[in-house]
């Protein structure tokens, strides 16, 4: 059988199996496990978007929390009913366009992504001239400015009180559908010529420029697409948690996403997917460390805050001892899988 057709069939099969599993999970697992599954999908979207910017185009961006904040706020403002908004804004009145908007959920997520991409464009024009660590600091600064703006734009965002009671629309199927959309777009993009240009810029920017590539334009493109999906991830996350406030979107959030991307391997899509699942599950299971537990008869008191200690250590160890992460730049593909099985058969 032609391997292209075979792979396509296998993809369809995999998606069908995933769909069945999610359908089963929705009806049989408890709320906590479903929440973890949801978080995996959202984290995967965020990790993929950062991987596009940093892993595939080589721009070290630390502004993810800002894009997520925009996505989450725009989506929440779109999806809340006007009555709810009037009830919640107690510091100042809601201003006009926000006060009447009421859109379906899918549109609110899309709007979150589009606005995040627009902000990405505004940011990209000044900062993408910078390289390396300067870019990191500048994007970090922009994320912080966005947060300060959200705190101070009380008539639009309800200021530091945040937004509560966002109606929960994002079920397992919805979240994973968005993940599939993200995956499809990114894989198509990265396998196209544009994707090759991104990778060329990552590997050697000067060489790419000498070859006549419009480096700045392609960087802006990659940055905006990344921001778009970060906004979508933020919107879904806000919906999943049902409350958002400006304190959520600090550098810590960017750090989490960065950790997933580095652990999975910069420039590996399957790596990002795998590490989103592993790290999300690990982060949740480490909650046990913060509760009191007994070990070999001794009562160990819970240590609040221990989770972040462990996680910063994990990231440190990865960067010191296994810099390429889980997958490096490799991918798990059907072809590789079949080659592996073939070799086993003949060996």
């Amino acid at each position, binding site marked *: 059988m032609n391997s292209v057709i075979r792979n396509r069939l296998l993809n369809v099969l995999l998606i069908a199996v995933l769909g069945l599993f999610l359908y089963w999970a929705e009806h049989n697992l408890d709320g906590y496990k479903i929440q973890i599954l949801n978080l995996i999908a959202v984290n995967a979207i965020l990790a993929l978007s950062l991987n596009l910017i940093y892993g595939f185009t080589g721009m070290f961006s630390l502004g993810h929390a800002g894009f997520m904040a925009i996505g989450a706020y725009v989506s929440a403002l779109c999806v809340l009913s006007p009555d709810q908004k009037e009830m919640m804004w107690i510091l100042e009145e809601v201003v006009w366009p926000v006060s009447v908007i009421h859109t379906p959920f899918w549109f609110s997520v899309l709007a979150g992504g589009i606005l995040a991409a627009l902000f990405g464009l505004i940011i990209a024009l000044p900062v993408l001239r910078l390289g390396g*660590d300067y870019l990191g600091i500048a994007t970090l600064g922009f994320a912080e400015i966005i947060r300060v703006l959200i705190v101070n734009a009380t008539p639009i965002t309800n200021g530091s009180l945040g937004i509560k009671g966002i109606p929960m629309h994002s079920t397992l199927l919805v979240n994973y559908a968005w993940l599939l959309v993200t995956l499809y777009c990114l894989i198509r993009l990265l396998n196209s010529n544009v994707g090759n240009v991104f990778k060329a810029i990552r590997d050697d920017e000067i060489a790419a420029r000498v070859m006549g590539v419009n480096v700045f334009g392609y960087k802006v493109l990659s940055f905006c697409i990344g921001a778009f999906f970060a906004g979508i991830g933020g919107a879904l996350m806000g919906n999943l948690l049902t409350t958002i406030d400006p304190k959520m979107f600090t550098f810590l959030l960017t750090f989490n996403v960065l950790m997933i991307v580095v652990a999975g391997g910069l420039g590996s899509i399957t790596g990002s997917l795998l590490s989103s699942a592993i790290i999300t599950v690990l982060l949740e299971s480490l909650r046990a460390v913060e509760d009191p537990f007994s070990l070999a008869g001794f009562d160990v008191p819970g240590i609040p805050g221990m989770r972040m200690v462990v996680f910063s250590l994990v990231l440190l160890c990865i960067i010191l001892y296994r810099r390429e992460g889980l997958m490096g730049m490799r991918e798990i593909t059907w072809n590789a899988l079949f080659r592996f099985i073939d070799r086993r058969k003949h060996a």
Partner: protein
Amino acid sequence: MSLDMFIQQFFNAITLGSLYGLIAIGYTMVYGILRLINFAHGDILMLGAYFVFFGTTTFCLPWGLAVVVAILAASATGILIDRIAYRPLREAPRISALISAIAVSFFIESLSVVLFTGLPRPVYQPEWLTTAFQIGSIRLLPLTLLVPAISFVLVMLLLWMVYHTKPGLAMRAISKDIETTRLLGVRVDRIIALTFGIGSALAAASGIMWALRYPQINPYMGIFPGFKAFIAAVLGGIGSIQGAMLGGLILGMLEIMAVAFLPSLSGFRDAFAFIVLLLVLFYKPTGIFGEHTEEKI
């Protein structure tokens, strides 16, 4: 605004600015030598303040001695961080070291939350520093004058060290070309450790003064001073010690004066520094004193 108010604010700005400047020196020295943004620098500042706190409470040391011990301990921490987290990555791509620095920063913060708890702690202030005196109609704290004075002395000492001693010469050589310097027989790793030690000592000193001025400490107190000091270093031209001090003073002045003249902007105070950063990076990425380097193939 009356003239008295202006003078009062002016002194506040000088104090804040010289603190930013002292912290910025640590960033600028490390960046000048290793091209690394030492994210953990702000956390060293926090540790310095905590060391004094525990020195005076848990170990019952007199305040002056506690300050000395804290500065030495913070300096040792800085050297240890370099040894564990940065030295193995000298040959790695620069961004790897930066990620390592971010991880170290989060590690120190979260470990401090575990060890010291996240609750803000009140800080002991020696009385002679905080009894206000009056000149005409201006009330000043001795602290407000002492902080810029100490900063000035420290910067002068540092400049003397960098430009008139052997280790200083080695530092300048490393910042130009690390490989050649190594070949010429300089023990590069020791000089880098020295740089981290000095930078961390300055950060601890400014952390202690920071805690005297804003007498409450918590494990996250280093983050914002750290960011702003880095911005001051970029503004002054990264790699330049005078530039770092000048950048710190300009930034402190901007922050205090903008809020003093336009109180309605006070909510945006934390965003000022970042806007300054973006303007500098956009118009003159090398800062005031920075050297221009062209990327070579």
